[in-house]
């Protein structure tokens, strides 16, 4: 049995549906094709930007991981029990390096979260 079988009731139902469909079509015009093309173009551009930004995001993640490992290594290497054995210049350099790495990571994360132009 197919939906298009011609029983009187089916035929009535089909006519009623089609009358309603034509009323709907006459009363409600669909949005213009230009609006859809514009929406698709905007979405295509957004997807292209996301694709282009993906390597940057990967590099940011890798940078953050490297900073965490560097900080952990520095903390282990210059732990309080080893501090007395270090001279002041080495200690100052180590602290400066760690601060720079962490500040760089923070700046990178902040830049990635701020809205792009």
């Amino acid at each position, binding site marked *: 049995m197919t939906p298009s079988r011609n029983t009187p009731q089916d035929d009535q139902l089909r006519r009623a549906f089609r009358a309603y469909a034509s009323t709907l079509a006459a009363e409600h015009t669909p949005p213009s094709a230009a609006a859809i093309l514009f929406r698709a173009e905007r979405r*295509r551009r957004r997807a292209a930007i996301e694709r282009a930004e993906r390597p940057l995001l990967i590099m940011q993640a890798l940078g953050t991981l490297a900073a965490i490992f560097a900080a952990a290594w520095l903390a282990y290497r210059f732990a309080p029990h080893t501090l007395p054995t270090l001279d002041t210049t080495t200690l100052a350099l180590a602290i400066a390096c760690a601060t720079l790495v962490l500040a760089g990571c923070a700046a990178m994360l902040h830049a990635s979260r701020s809205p792009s132009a």
Partner: protein
Amino acid sequence: MPSSLEHAAAHSATVLSELAFQRLYDANATSIHSYLLAVSARRDVADDLLQETFCRLLLHPKSTAHLDPLELRRYLFRIATNLLRDRHRSGDSTPYADPPEPSTQPTPDTTHDIRAMLHHLKPRDRELLWLAYVEGMDHAEISAATGLNRLSVRTLLFRARNKAKQFLSPASPSL
């Protein structure tokens, strides 16, 4: 390594041209819009889902490049049906809050009855009846357009049709 000219040629082959899209849109937009209006019963939702349906087609031109116009039409109905179901599943389903009531009614009784009947039915029944009676699709085409099994379409359509007839029969207390 392909030249920029080869890149441009490949791009134009996979992207639907504006003219081709306009033709495709003119041929299918009204029927898909009516379908979305009938099932969702909301003008704003129908407009949004229609735009989304064609947007998806434009963004994935490779998957539709080999389809003939009839298959493309079914594919569009499939996207529209999936979007309707996604909307329904996401909980944003307040059907008939803003029913598309026509201002001029050439056949007021029929229009009112069908509107009331669609209101009474489940969204899936509305989809099946619309595709069968307005779009004139057979079971295989409805199956392709809705993603339902062909045998399920047969059973579900039979039940939906009976519900519709019951609702529209003169003995029905709702009329």
